[in-house]
């Protein structure tokens, strides 16, 4: 054993006896002492009692010491340096100005400070192991020298979000060689969007208190900066057309003056709601913006507040969202020239349909009729032409004229409006009868221009009284309106079995793009559909479709054909998504800035078969007022009529995309729209005001404190809990010598001789 190998020692027990045995033996010795003490009670002289008891106690202790086998432990000890962790915020918020209006970014401020602290870090490294990290939501080792000298400071700050507590926990568990932690320094703007987003919660405080060392914090961005932000938007995933939609907006203000803030909601650049809310400097305010969407589709909406002078972040003064407006029920206006069986069965069908909200007006009495009564004896009401064709027109999804002649009601002034309503996305159906089409004086009116078919020339009889057998046309075989049964053959057979029609309204030539779905056996059009601008129209040249219900029921066919036909016709007219030839769907509602937004297109031709090889042309429309539209060539559809559209990375904001599918000859097959939003998923940039107060709370919870930029980090009150590590050790028994035994024997001998002398046995 070379004593030079050891630099420390300590006493140690070398006994192999188990603890319980030692305790037992100690008990026995104590019992023996007690008996001995009792035996000495008869001794009148106190000094003798004391001497004898002391000697016996010493002997007992000596025996116990022998049992413990005392020894010397020699140790080769080394001291381990503690660790200091320096955490630098590298999240995106550090790219923002350090102070209101400052040209210096927060990360540049950090870099400047780090540069000034490099000597202090070197000095610190002589006493501690210094671990340097960059952090956002993750922790990554960094080289302080490189950080301090990087030319483009903002290149450092790329982290998508900040989580200070998580970063501290990771740093505390990190390090090498199990070094103790002397402390941590966080250099950050405090814009936490992790556990501390809502402030220092009790659970976050507990997590911080569990950290093994104090945290010192250096706030970057100094004082609380002036900022107004749209903190939160709450809106349903979808809304119903013509039903009120509420958008709950939470505004957050920091260091703002007391002011009234106008909050504006825009749909693709157009203001749809606006409210003013009062804000008192700091805190939050909630405002509910409400509007009633007037059409279906998916739209991009933006809520914005003004950007006030000196605000830290301008980007958080607006927020976008995409909202799908769907139909609760189809609101249909049925205008009827006179009651008939056709009217009765259509009304019954529409009234029974829970998806249809039917508003109907029947002309029950014409000026030539004599009711033999006063007006008050009748249940009749005036025909409110102005109300329904002017004021309420755009609240309807579908307008149906059933055997209706407009002339007696002086409606010429409204016909233009009805045509415009259809061209702008409405739907119109004209059902035949002796007052319909040309017989209803619609030739050369705006209504004729929206019909899918021209009306016959003047002089041509408007009615053909010959009974008609119908047949499906080529287009009708594939069109959803005339698909009463799955399977072409079964469908055609069913149409052939339906009752003959007693006559037809004579129609002219179908318009370009219109489709004749049903015709008479001598090829006169019976059912024609087409597009009119953005809207759709249908012409049914008979007032006897009711026979497909009641008369068919008498022939044991049942009313199913009639119901299927009209349900499909209405769905097609109002562009039910299930019957739309082209669909465009964004992969997600919201894309990250820098990400390529992806949309899926599904194109079917007018015959409703997949449109393979269709060339897509994509128009990208930012919702920002005045922003430039981009038109780009999209992909070509595959055999299944589908295509994947990948857009270039886009700046934050709301976007509308219109995709047009075209044939090789350039003619349009179909068009579809979609809306989406580009916005960061985290609030890192939108709610990025510095939070020095939060950093102060973090430091305090761990026993640390906030430091100033001028403090040298070498002089911070780091803990210095060195760890002692024992590399080698050996033991040397102390009891195993003659002298120990001799002392014990001498003590026993003295006690024995004194007892003899004093007359004890």
């Amino acid at each position, binding site marked *: 054993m070379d004593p030079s190998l050891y630099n420390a020692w300590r006493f140690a027990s070398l006994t192999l006896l188990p603890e319980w045995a030692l305790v037992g033996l100690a008990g026995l010795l104590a019992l023996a002492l007690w008996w001995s003490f009792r035996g000495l009670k008869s001794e009148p002289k106190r000094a003798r009692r004391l001497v004898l008891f002391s000697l016996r106690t010493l002997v007992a202790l000596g025996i116990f010491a022998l049992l413990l086998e005392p020894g010397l432990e020699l140790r080769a000890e080394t001291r381990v340096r503690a660790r200091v962790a320096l955490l630098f915020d590298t999240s995106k918020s550090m790219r923002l100005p350090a102070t209101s209006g400052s040209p210096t970014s927060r990360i540049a401020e950090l870099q400047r400070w780090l540069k000034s602290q490099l000597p202090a870090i070197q000095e610190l490294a002589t006493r501690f192991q210094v671990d340097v990290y960059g952090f956002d939501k993750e922790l990554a080792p960094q080289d302080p020298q490189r950080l301090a000298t990087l030319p483009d400071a903002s290149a450092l700050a790329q982290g998508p979000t900040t989580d200070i507590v998580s970063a501290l926990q990771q740093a505390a568990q990190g390090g090498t060689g199990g070094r103790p932690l002397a402390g941590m320094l966080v250099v950050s703007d405090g814009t936490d969007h992790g556990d501390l987003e809502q402030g220092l919660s009790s659970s976050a405080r507990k997590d911080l208190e569990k950290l093994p060392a104090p945290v010192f914090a250096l706030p970057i961005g100094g004082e609380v900066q002036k900022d107004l932000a749209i903190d939160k938007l709450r809106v349903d995933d979808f809304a119903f057309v013509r039903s009120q939609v509420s958008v709950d907006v939470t505004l957050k203000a920091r260091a703002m003056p007391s002011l009234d803030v106008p909050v504006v909601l825009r749909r693709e650049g157009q203001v749809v709601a606006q409210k003013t809310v009062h804000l008192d400097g700091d805190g939050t305010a909630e405002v509910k913006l409400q509007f009633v969407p007037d059409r279906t589709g998916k739209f991009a909406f933006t809520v914005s507040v003004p950007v006030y002078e000196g605000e830290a972040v301008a980007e958080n003064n607006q927020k976008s969202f995409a909202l799908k407006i769907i139909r609760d029920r189809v609101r249909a206006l049925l205008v009827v*020239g*006179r*009651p*008939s*069986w*056709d*009217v*009765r*069965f259509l*009304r*019954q069908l529409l*009234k*029974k349909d829970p998806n249809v909200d039917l*508003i*109907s*007006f*029947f*002309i*029950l*009495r*014409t000026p030539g*009729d*004599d*009711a*033999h*009564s006063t007006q*008050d*004896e*009748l*249940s*009749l*009401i005036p025909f*409110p032409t102005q109300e329904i064709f002017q004021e309420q027109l755009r609240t309807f999804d579908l307008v149906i004229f059933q*055997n209706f002649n407009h002339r007696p009601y002086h409606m010429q002034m409204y016909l233009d409006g009805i045509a415009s309503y259809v061209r702008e996305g409405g739907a119109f159906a004209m059902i035949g*009868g*002796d007052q319909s089409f040309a*017989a209803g004086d619609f030739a050369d009116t705006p209504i004729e221009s929206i019909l899918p078919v021209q009306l016959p020339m003047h002089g041509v009889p408007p*009615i053909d*009284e010959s009974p008609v057998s119908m047949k499906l046309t080529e287009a009708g075989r594939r069109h959803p309106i005339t698909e009463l049964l799955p399977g072409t053959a079964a469908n055609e057979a069913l149409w052939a079995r339906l009752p003959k*029609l*007693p*006559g037809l*309204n004579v129609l002219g030539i179908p318009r370009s793009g219109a489709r004749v779905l049903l015709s008479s056996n001598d090829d006169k059009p019976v059912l024609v559909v087409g597009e009119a601008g953005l809207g759709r129209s249908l012409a049914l040249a*008979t*007032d*006897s479709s009711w*026979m497909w*219900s*009641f*008369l068919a*029921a*008498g*022939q044991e066919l*049942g*009313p199913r054909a009639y119901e299927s036909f009209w349900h499909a016709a209405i769905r097609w007219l109002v562009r039910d998504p299930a019957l739309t030839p082209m669909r465009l769907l964004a992969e997600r509602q919201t894309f990250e800035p820098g990400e390529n937004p992806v949309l899926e297109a599904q194109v079917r031709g007018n015959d409703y078969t997949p449109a393979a090889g269709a060339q897509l042309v994509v128009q990208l429309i930012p919702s920002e007022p005045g922003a430039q539209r981009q038109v780009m060539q999209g992909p070509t559809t595959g055999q299944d009529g589908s295509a994947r559209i990948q857009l270039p990375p886009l700046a934050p904001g709301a976007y509308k995309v219109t995709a047009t599918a075209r044939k090789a000859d350039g003619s349009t097959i179909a068009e579809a729209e979609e809306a989406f939003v580009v916005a960061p998923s985290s609030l890192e940039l939108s709610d990025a005001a510095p939070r020095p107060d939060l950093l102060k709370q973090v430091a305090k919870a761990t026993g640390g404190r906030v430091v100033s930029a001028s403090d040298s980090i070498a002089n911070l009150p780091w803990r210095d809990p060195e760890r002692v590590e024992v590399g080698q050790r050996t033991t040397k028994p102390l009891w195993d010598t003659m002298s120990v035994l001799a002392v014990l024997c001498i003590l026993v001998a003295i006690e024995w001789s004194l007892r003899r002398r004093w007359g004890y046995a």
Partner: protein
Amino acid sequence: MTKPKATLARRTFLGTGALSLLALAARKALAFGEAARLEFAILRHSGRFDVRPDALPRLAWEVSKRTSIETTPVVRAYSAVDPDLFKHPLLVLASDGEIPTPGDAEIAALRRYLSYGGFLLLDDSSATKGGAFERSVKAFLAAIIPGAQLTPVARTHVIYKSFYLLDGPSGRTNTMPDLLGIELGGRLAVAYSGNDLLGALARDSLGTWEFEVTPGGESQRERAIRLGVNLVMYTMCLDYKEDQVHIPFIMKRRRI
């Protein structure tokens, strides 16, 4: 018992003349689609099924004259199993005596007729409460619509406001205070008049009212005509007059 009216009033003569003209005019004005016009159908059976042959043409004329509904004076009689019955969603069964119990095929056809949208107007020409017609009709309906029973039609029912605002039923007599009816699928599919409604409308070959109307006289006849118009209007418009837009007007006029 009904009592023929002997005199020929000037007004009746003119009315009959107008009815004849209607038959001519209708062909011209209603060239498009026979099926679009109201044509009454009566149910043929082995009993007396056409005891008021002139009443329905008269009602067709009144409907045409008073409303925008186009009618034809033709009345067709069909057996229950005739497929052409389904060209006429309004079917009238009137008699002054017992009607025979229908066979299985007739029951099936009439059940189908009523289920898919047909309307059956039953009129007791004898106007005898608990009489042979009423008793046999109940058995007839029980066979067609098992479990269904004729119940009074509420005075608030749309049938009393489908064109005219009426307080209750009327006919040649006032034997029964209410129309009776059976609802199927939310609509009135069967209506029963115990007051000889068609009797109030019937004219003889000279154009005079065939029967005296008691106890209300001509005003009661007018109410009977109005009820007939309302019944026709109801079959073609269903509950149109219960749409929200009509309610304030009707409530206001009811209060007057």
